[in-house]
């Protein structure tokens, strides 16, 4: 026996809730594990019920991830229910949005959604926003910038609605399913992980309820409030293409060859190097050519980061890439590799690219290969607005990896159709030229004057080096100088740099 108050310093002990009382002990559950999980209180019969239970209110911020890409059913499904329940003035903070999310247009018109934060917009929704659909401009953040905003609490998520290809009755969720080969699969849940961690309330939406424990998991049950089973979270064909195909486009192959030779000559191509590659045609071809160089010179890659493709997985399985850090799996081979390869690690958006946490993987990159819609003579890159000024892209990890990598290589054709890619001034700055080191086109390589040592190494290696101004002049000589796009004064989009400062704005296009 003891007298609680007589314990020395007990009042100064934190996390001490007084003396033990037997009546505070909850009744034990005596049913078997299996019976228990069948009746898990987290599993709710409908989205509507889950939305009621989390206490959604007008004006709140809700979040979604974009791991289902253009096959996603979750955002439209959830928004339809929310609209029917009569909620208004919500902020939709998705990690990204794509073509299939055009039904949001009606929810915006009806006042269900007032404001959108995303990495990108495409298709009819991007078009509508560019034509002045919203009063509140869309806020575009990079993957790292969004992660940072969530971590600092500046972007506060009230409710996260996260689709998952598998989940158990307690909320352990993942982007693949170890219990069966059926159903959809998206691999890494990198962007969803952070939302689950920081949202006040988290609802997992799945079409594959499996027995506890759904290990390994991308999202642990400790972060999940409710689980809702639906018939389909997405169209598997839209979520994942089987394998990303090699390009046969001679222009892209030429760009890839130049880029590979530039990497080899750069001084960064040595044993234990690190890299990130995109999923565009030229980027994929770089992976293929670089693989040959690695075999030839017996050089191994320590880790590959980012959106991961089958090409990287193949190199990993051959022992050429030792480790993979995967925030988003781009194809089915990559998704299956997360499931099967021990050193193919799922990482969250903060670990990938945040600028405020205690360490982000982008800062360990030797080089990154990035694409561009436009590059200007100051090396600024636009990946957001098309040649007509309409929003049709995504910031993604572009500015994050460009800032982190020792050598940032942008690959693009000199012309797309008749539109020059290299120009005097990009329509929209997404990644500042200060962080872009090399631009590789089918008609020559330009090196940022801030990197004279790269210029010299490329010249010594006999690469077709020129200046960015000469590339622009050549493009305009072939295509003619385009007339500038006509905009109104209305700002429809705001581009945040990765430190969440405003780097540019997008204006409404004139019809």
């Amino acid at each position, binding site marked *: 026996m003891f007298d609680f108050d007589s314990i020395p310093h007990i009042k100064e002990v934190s996390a001490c809730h007084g003396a033990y009382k037997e009546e505070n002990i909850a009744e034990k559950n005596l049913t078997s594990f299996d019976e228990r999980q069948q009746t898990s209180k987290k599993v709710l019969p409908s989205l509507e019920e889950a939305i009621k239970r989390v206490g959604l209110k007008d004006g709140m911020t809700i979040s979604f991830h974009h791991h289902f890409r253009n096959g996603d059913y979750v955002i439209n499904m959830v928004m339809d229910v929310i609209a029917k329940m009569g909620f208004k003035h919500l902020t939709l903070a998705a990690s990204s949005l794509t073509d299939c999310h055009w039904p949001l247009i009606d929810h915006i018109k009806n006042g269900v959604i007032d404001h959108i934060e995303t990495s990108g917009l495409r298709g009819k929704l991007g078009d509508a926003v560019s034509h002045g659909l919203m009063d509140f401009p869309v806020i575009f953040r990079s993957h790292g910038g969004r992660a940072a905003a969530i971590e600092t609490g500046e972007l506060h998520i009230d409710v996260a609605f996260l689709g998952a290809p598998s989940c158990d009755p307690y909320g352990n969720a993942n982007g693949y399913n170890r219990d069966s080969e059926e159903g959809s699969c998206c691999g890494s849940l990198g962007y969803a992980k952070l939302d689950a961690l920081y949202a006040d309330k988290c609802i997992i939406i799945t079409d594959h309820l499996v027995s506890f424990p759904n290990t390994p998991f991308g999202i642990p049950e400790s972060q999940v409030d409710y689980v809702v089973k639906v018939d389909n979270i997405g169209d598997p064909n839209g979520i994942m293409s089987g394998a990303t195909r090699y390009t046969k486009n001679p222009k892209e192959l030429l760009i890839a060859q130049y880029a590979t030779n530039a990497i080899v000559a750069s001084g960064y191509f040595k044993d234990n190097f690190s890299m990130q590659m995109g999923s565009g045609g030229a980027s994929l071809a770089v992976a293929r050519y670089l693989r040959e160089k690695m075999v030839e010179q017996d050089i191994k890659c320590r880790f590959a980061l980012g959106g991961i493709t089958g090409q990287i997985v193949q190199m990993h399985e051959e022992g050429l890439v030792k480790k993979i850090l995967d925030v988003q799996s781009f194809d089915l081979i990559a998704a299956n590799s997360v499931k099967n390869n021990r050193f193919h690690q799922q990482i969250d958006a903060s670990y990938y690219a945040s600028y405020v946490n205690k360490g982000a993987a982008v800062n360990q990159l030797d080089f990154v290969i990035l694409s561009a819609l436009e590059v200007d003579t100051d090396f600024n890159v636009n990946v957001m607005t098309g040649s007509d000024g309409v929003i049709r892209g995504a910031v993604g990890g572009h500015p994050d990896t460009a800032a982190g990598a020792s050598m940032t290589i942008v690959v693009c054709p000199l012309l797309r159709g008749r539109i020059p890619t290299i120009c005097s001034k990009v329509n929209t700055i997404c990644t500042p030229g200060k962080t872009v080191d090399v631009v590789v086109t089918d008609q020559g390589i330009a090196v940022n004057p801030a990197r004279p040592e790269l210029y010299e190494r490329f010249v010594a290696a006999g690469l077709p080096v020129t200046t960015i101004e000469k590339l622009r002049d050549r493009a305009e000589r*072939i295509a003619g100088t*385009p*007339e500038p796009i006509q905009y109104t004064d209305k700002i429809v989009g705001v581009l945040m740099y990765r430190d969440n400062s405003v780097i540019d704005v997008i204006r409404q296009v004139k019809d």
Partner: protein
Amino acid sequence: MDIKKTGVAGTMESSDIIVRIEPKETEGIELELESAVMQQYGKQIERVIRETLGELGVTRAYVNAVDKGALDCTVAARTSAAAYRAAESSDYVWKEVRI
């Protein structure tokens, strides 16, 4: 050059233009242009079509063009081929088309 019937040249492929030229009773070129790059290059494409027809001495014609981002040299070549076909002429003047 007299336009006698409908003449067509070109394709709907990317970076090409399809030009259709038809007879017209009255003086003047009536041009209808659709382009994937209308905003940036619409005026330029129209100028190249009119200049090319002018050089060939075509003064009466309906012209319909659907452009998929063709360069000026392609626009000129397709316009000229359509005009020859519409005029039922094969007295081609082979030359380098300026870029």
